[in-house]
């Protein structure tokens, strides 16, 4: 048994050499940090002194004492449960519509839809659109049309700013999964559609449901994983557009909470515990999604 394994390994030694450089980096920058993070989450660590084991204290503190963390969890879930599914179905829906266009128009439409996801520098423009004074584009338009009298504090009002962020997130969310879906639609065997027409499929909705979607499940799983991961990691747009901390922590998220403790207060153990919770949440949801979408 062991001898066979050793022979197999020796036979493939060139393969191992080829994968070595990549997996060294992969282990240093992804696998090791995950393992270290789990370890650190049970410690008290401020970078200067060595980590001290404190059992479940960090997690107890998170859930029993840290009210702001509970706000962060609530906001993150609210945000992810709304933007995650909407962006996923938007990716799918628009990919489906775009796929029906002729190739030249399709290329241009893809560029238009994908462009906001191409650069994280450009979402900044929304500050000027949603600016809370009369010079903000949206306030200006609404006021000159007489729809509102006073400017609305889109980004500062704790009652609405999370929803404003959702709109901006959705604007940026036709990314990699969107491209995968467009491509997925193009891989479907044309003869399936002809067979479907004979079997009595009458319109594009039936065609989508009975033929197209079942044949592109691998892409659907890939896209779902990327969307779930991205929507639970929301942080950048909140910190850039609303500022940190947001008024009454109205746009505070798990990643921002982690960043607060990790990069500002240097409570690395506590911050790691937050990271572990984010890790458990996204991995669990992604495994669930994978089960649901699993091809038969």
């Amino acid at each position: 048994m062991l001898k066979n394994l050793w022979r197999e390994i020796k036979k493939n030694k060139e393969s191992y050499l080829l994968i070595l450089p990549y997996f060294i980096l992969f282990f240093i920058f992804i696998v090791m940090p995950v393992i270290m993070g789990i370890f650190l989450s049970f410690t008290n660590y401020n970078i200067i002194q060595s980590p001290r084991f404190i059992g479940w204290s960090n997690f107890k503190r998170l859930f029993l004492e840290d009210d702001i963390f509970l706000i962060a969890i609530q906001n993150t879930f609210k945000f992810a449960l709304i933007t995650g599914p909407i962006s996923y179905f938007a990716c799918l829906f628009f990919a489906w519509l775009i796929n029906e266009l002729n190739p030249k128009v399709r290329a241009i439409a893809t560029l238009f839809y994908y462009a906001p996801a191409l650069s994280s520098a450009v979402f900044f423009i929304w500050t000027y659109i949603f600016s809370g004074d009369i010079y903000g584009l949206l306030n200006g338009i609404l006021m000159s049309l007489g729809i509102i009298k006073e400017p609305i504090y889109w980004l500062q009002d704790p009652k609405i700013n999370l929803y404003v962020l959702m709109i901006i997130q959705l604007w940026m969310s036709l990314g990699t999964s969107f491209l995968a879906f467009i491509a997925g639609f193009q891989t479907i065997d044309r003869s399936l559609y002809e067979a479907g027409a004979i079997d009595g499929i009458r319109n594009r909705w039936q065609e989508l449901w009975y033929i197209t979607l079942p044949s592109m499940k691998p892409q659907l799983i890939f896209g779902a994983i990327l969307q779930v991961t991205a929507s639970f990691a929301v942080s950048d747009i909140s910190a850039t557009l609303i500022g940190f901390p947001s008024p009454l922590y109205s746009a505070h998220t798990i990643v921002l909470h982690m960043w607060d403790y990790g990069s500002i207060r240097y409570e690395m153990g506590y911050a790691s515990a937050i990271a572990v919770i984010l890790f458990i949440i996204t991995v669990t949801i992604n495994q669930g999604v994978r089960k649901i979408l699993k091809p038969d």
Partner: protein
Amino acid sequence: MRNTAYRSLWGNLIITIILILVAIFMALPLVYSIMNAFKPLDELFLFPPRFFVRRPTLKNFTDLFYLMGTSFVPFSRYIFNSIFVSFLGTLGHVLIASMAAYPLAKNKFPGSNFLFNLVIFSLMFSGYVTNIPRFIIMAKLRLLDSYFALILPYIGATLGLFLMKQFMEQIPDSYIESARIDGANEFKIWWYVVMPNVKPAWLTLILFAFRDIWNDSYSPSLYIHNEALKPFSLALSYIQQGGFVRAGASAAAAVLMLLPSIIIFIITQSNVMETMKSAGIKG
């Protein structure tokens, strides 16, 4: 050609209208950025605000160069850092990830499934999860305040390896077999047989890696404190935090940030779509 037998005219009309409306929603903020980048100061603060620029000016761009030049290092240094890091990171990622993707796609060896599943697993959580320990590792390896801190993690990025491996699986085994019979070793097969056949995939990796490195202001903010090593993206995020006084310069900078990614996407688009066809996870 598509079989369009059961496409109703009304359906087509409604779909066209939806597509156009959403395209406008997607494009307006980008166009507004471009407009703002060319607006003189008095046009940026008008009531009611105006979408289009009346008297376009390049002043915002000269302001931007001036603003960035006021720190210890010249503006060109930030640009150089960004280009240098993006270039090496992209090149390294494409080479090293595709080198690892070939055996994973074509050779079954002990551990190959396990390693690839590990890569898929890592797509299931955000990079933020690894931030804190990664910072500690960087510190221990004495990589802080060096270009390596910005380049090495991107070379080991997972999405690229995943896409490359899925795409390589389509190469007919007979190509590889015949090269093997001719006596080529695995390295030669990868370079002379596999790589020329997966051009769409490495062009896609170029786009994604470049986009990620070029736009990243977060990891430089953690790992780089030496002003002379900071990339453009980070310098820009400081300017954007400067508030309304710098509204014009911020818009100009955002346009400069977006431009390279858009150009690369336009060049590589058809190849990217080709690659994404194989980007599925089977169960």
